[in-house]
């Protein structure tokens, strides 16, 4: 596996800032398993850790000694930008609505199926309801700025796994 295949795991500002030099580390060589794991852990860190979040898409490259970068960091911190989530309030509200409405809707559907005598189907929907909605929530929030194709692959793979586990639980 090549490094550029994993770069999309990182948030867009991070990719814009470090992507080229990051991929260049490997000079198109295949990654070892330990490096793949390190990249995945690093991507989670870049998304979740406030400390690792890249402040600006076009981080300044100082042409003078000192000065510029320090002032940018100071103003970014003063403005509270380092406390921002990696998604906007619109995505957050939309994701929360989808999560709550979808979860309760699926639970109601599960109860209806059980009432109609479709015990296995009702149990399947019940077990799958929260994981499915949580995956859709993540898709609308943390992953919303990712390229659509790998994001679709990830969502389909996660939903398939949930379906498999819920199916086994419902048997």
């Amino acid at each position, binding site marked *: 596996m090549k490094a550029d295949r994993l770069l999309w795991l990182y948030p867009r500002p991070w990719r814009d800032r470090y992507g080229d030099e990051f991929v260049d580390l490997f000079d198109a060589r295949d990654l070892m398993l330990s490096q793949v794991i390190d990249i995945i852990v690093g991507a989670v860190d870049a998304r979740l850790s406030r400390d690792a979040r890249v402040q600006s898409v076009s981080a300044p490259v100082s042409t003078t000694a000192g000065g510029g970068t*320090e002032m940018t960091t100071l103003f970014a911190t003063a403005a509270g930008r380092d406390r921002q989530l990696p998604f906007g309030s619109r995505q957050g509200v939309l994701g929360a609505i989808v999560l709550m409405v979808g979860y309760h809707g699926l639970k109601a559907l599960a109860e209806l199926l059980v009432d109609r005598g479709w015990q296995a189907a009702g149990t399947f929907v019940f077990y799958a309801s929260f994981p499915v909605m949580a995956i859709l929530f993540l898709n609308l929030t943390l992953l919303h700025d990712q390229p659509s194709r790998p994001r679709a692959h990830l969502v389909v793979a996660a939903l398939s796994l949930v379906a498999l586990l819920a199916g086994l639980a419902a048997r």
Partner: protein
Amino acid sequence: MKKTNPDSLNDLGRFSEPALFILLSLADGPKHGYAMTQDIEQVTGQKLGPGTLYGAIARLEARTWIEPLPSDDRRRPYKLTGAGERVLRARLESLRAVTRIGQTRLADA
């Protein structure tokens, strides 16, 4: 409550050691990421993974302990800042004290 010094490498948690290695690597001049990993492996015997390397670089850059230099190349070099040099000196001094105490205790044992 644990006290942390914002000017200390300890504040970087699991990235404190990789960050120390990066500061150490830049102490003799600017280097890009690949050159840093090579230098760190040669000096310490540890090969930093790419996620760890850039996790530490992002933290050091945010604290202005290192800064990027202009480059037309994909490989962007970084240099140690004055603040980074002070942090590195403080950590090396602390390590020297620990080494001295350890050697004294081993000699007395």
